[in-house]
């Protein structure tokens, strides 16, 4: 897909962008397909929570399978493709050279998506692993490792072959994600699927893997975009930037150790959840520095920045809440309830998705050299999506709080609890619907914007309001 730029926008659209256009658009387009699919599945799974009979005669859409399909389409479909597209673009731009090995990226993308598709079919047919965040059947997993490595190769080359010797925060985060995910996936599948450890050790490994998805992969990719775009758009240097390396290493070093939060009170050694409490507190340092560095986001305007502002707020809030719920006193009430789902929504929709959206809104015009086809759709997407996230997080928190109270009192029969929290669950379903609608606006806008059929609008002043003066502040 080669699209000739329609405007002379050389200051914003660099040769790096033009060169990588096809490969990165392929990643973004695939990610949006998965985003819609996971939204539909999320809606189905949400309906099944308050109306268990929904679609009960479809064996491939039992609630457990719908949930696994949703999660897989979201993580390995949407977040992986979008995160890789954004990450490669960032290291390409910051490296200053044309991205190399892009044919590997394209091949890898095709095989990655085929692998995810085969995995989803496998889950639907009954091959899910039942390990949280790693539901993909094991027969597609080696393919995914290789395909990921092929995609990531270009990013690692762009970083190691960069023009400027010094590096920027976005580069650390992207390289960490590109480099570590294959190790994470390999280590995870080895001890859980190929040579499964004994008994509950599998659950411990699964908790570590699920936390690794966040700490070693998706959070770094999401933050990389924020670190790049915030100073570019606001035109300001990041305050306290000298602490950014510390924030980076704290996330990587302590992040994985917070895994035990998912196992509090369970049949595992007690030190695992104790370490998680300590690590959760340590990671707060990362969130604090992030807040310090990126607080200039509050002063900026623009579509990309509005998404990033909300995403960063959700990111920091989710770090704080995760640290709180890891305490045993709190977990006694909230563990095993919808409060966990609320935190997942906050982290994965509120932080990861929103930050990715912000990056995509900033990146696409620079990639294609043309504006987004509709500003109204962007605003609609933002308003609806944020409303959906807030609705889902708040309603699930309420549901989880009530559910925890009922579970704790020991008298309310379990079968009655669902009826008592039906209200909040209905709101959560509505929120999923709103998020899905919002994302459809993005999809429409995206394909209208990249469609080669779109003619140049000579009267438009050009896609970029801010002149190239801000270009200098990023590195």
């Amino acid at each position: 897909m080669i699209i000739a730029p329609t405007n002379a926008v050389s200051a914003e659209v660099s040769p790096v962008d033009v060169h990588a256009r096809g490969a990165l658009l392929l990643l973004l387009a695939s990610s949006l397909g998965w985003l819609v699919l996971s939204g539909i599945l999320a809606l189905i799974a949400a309906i099944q929570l308050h109306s268990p009979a929904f679609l009960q005669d479809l064996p491939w859409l039992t609630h457990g399978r719908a949930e696994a399909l949703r999660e897989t389409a979201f993580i390995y479909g949407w977040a992986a493709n979008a995160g890789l597209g954004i990450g490669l673009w960032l290291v390409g731009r910051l490296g200053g050279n044309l991205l190399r090995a892009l044919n590997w990226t394209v091949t890898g993308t095709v095989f990655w998506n085929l692998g995810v598709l085969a995995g989803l079919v496998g889950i639907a047919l009954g091959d899910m692993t039942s390990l949280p965040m790693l539901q993909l059947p094991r027969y597609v997993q080696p393919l995914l490792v290789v395909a990921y490595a092929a995609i990531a190769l270009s990013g690692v080359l762009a970083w190691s072959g960069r023009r400027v010797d010094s590096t920027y925060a976005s580069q650390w985060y992207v390289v960490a994600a590109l480099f570590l995910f294959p190790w994470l996936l390999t280590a995870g599948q080895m001890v859980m699927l190929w040579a499964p450890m004994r008994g509950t050790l599998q659950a411990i490994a699964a908790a570590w893997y699920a936390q690794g998805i966040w700490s070693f992969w998706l959070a770094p990719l999401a933050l990389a975009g924020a670190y790049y775009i915030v100073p570019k758009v606001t035109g300001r240097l990041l305050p306290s930037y000298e602490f950014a390396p510390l924030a980076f290493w704290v996330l990587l070093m302590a992040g994985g150790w917070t895994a035990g939060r998912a196992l509090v009170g369970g049949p595992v050694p007690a030190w695992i959840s104790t370490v998680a409490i300590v690590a959760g507190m340590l990671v707060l340092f990362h969130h604090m520095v992030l807040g310090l560095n990126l607080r200039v986001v509050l002063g900026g305007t623009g579509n990309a920045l509005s998404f990033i502002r909300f995403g960063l707020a959700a990111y920091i809030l989710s770090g704080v809440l995760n640290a709180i719920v890891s305490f045993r006193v709190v977990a006694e009430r909230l563990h095993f309830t919808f409060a966990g789902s609320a935190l997942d929504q906050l982290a994965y929709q509120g932080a990861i998705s929103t930050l990715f959206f912000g990056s995509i809104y900033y990146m696409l015009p620079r990639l294609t050299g043309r504006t987004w086809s509709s500003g109204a759709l962007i605003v609609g997407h933002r308003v609806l999506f944020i409303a959906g996230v807030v609705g889902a997080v708040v309603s699930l928190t309420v549901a989880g709080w009530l559910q925890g109270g009922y579970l704790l009192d020991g008298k309310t029969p379990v079968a009655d609890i669902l009826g008592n929290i039906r209200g909040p669950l209905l709101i959560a379903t509505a929120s999923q619907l709103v998020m899905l609608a919002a994302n459809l606006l993005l999809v429409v806008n995206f394909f209208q914007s990249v469609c080669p059929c779109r003619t140049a609008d000579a009267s438009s002043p050009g896609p970029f309001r801010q002149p190239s003066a801000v270009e200098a502040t990023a590195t």
Partner: protein
Amino acid sequence: MKNAPVFLFGLLAALTISWAGIVLGSHAQLGALAPYFDDGDQQSYPFRQSGIAARGQLVYAELGCASCHTQQVRRPGYGSDQARGWGDRQSVARDYIHQIVPQLGGLRLGPDLANLAARKPNAPAAEDLMKLLYLGSPTHPAYRFLFQERQISGQRSLKALPLAGRDAPAANYEIVPTEQAQSLVSYLLSLNHAFVYPEARPAPKETKAGAPAHAAPKETPVPAAAPDEKKKTEGAKK
């Protein structure tokens, strides 16, 4: 972070240290857990899963039952698991050593099932579980695809569900569980955490500090309760 090899090594170290600490560390602690041989009973606990129960666990896993049911009883005094009759002791790692894919779960939309066969006041009968799977309930989906409706040829099948009224199949037809449903129910009825391992007894310190509100500590006749529970264990096996 300018030096590529050092930077990449640092990244890998960050990942590896947490993996080694959490995964290998707990493996070193629990990887060699053996069944516990009880001198009084002259047998080992936990029981090995029967073939059909092991198959049932795979059915449980691939249907995604763990998305609404946990299988981990919390200790008395932490949560209400004991009051709900889900178990008088916490689940410990040794309970799971024979399981191929332990299903700890993370959400309690339904009851905890770790100790289903020894649940108090009474464990569900196989027939109740079959009916729940076939008919569903307002809070539980029906899994009709785990059953087969077929014409009765000759004698009625012993496995046919005893359904009456609105739910009953047409005359001369019967509803029989498929092999999947049978193994799933066998698995559920094999779930038993009644035997009290040494590590599952409440620590003495906790006994003294235990909140008086909970019916537990001092009086709990742990060893005395065990034999009576074991009978249930054996009953459930049949």
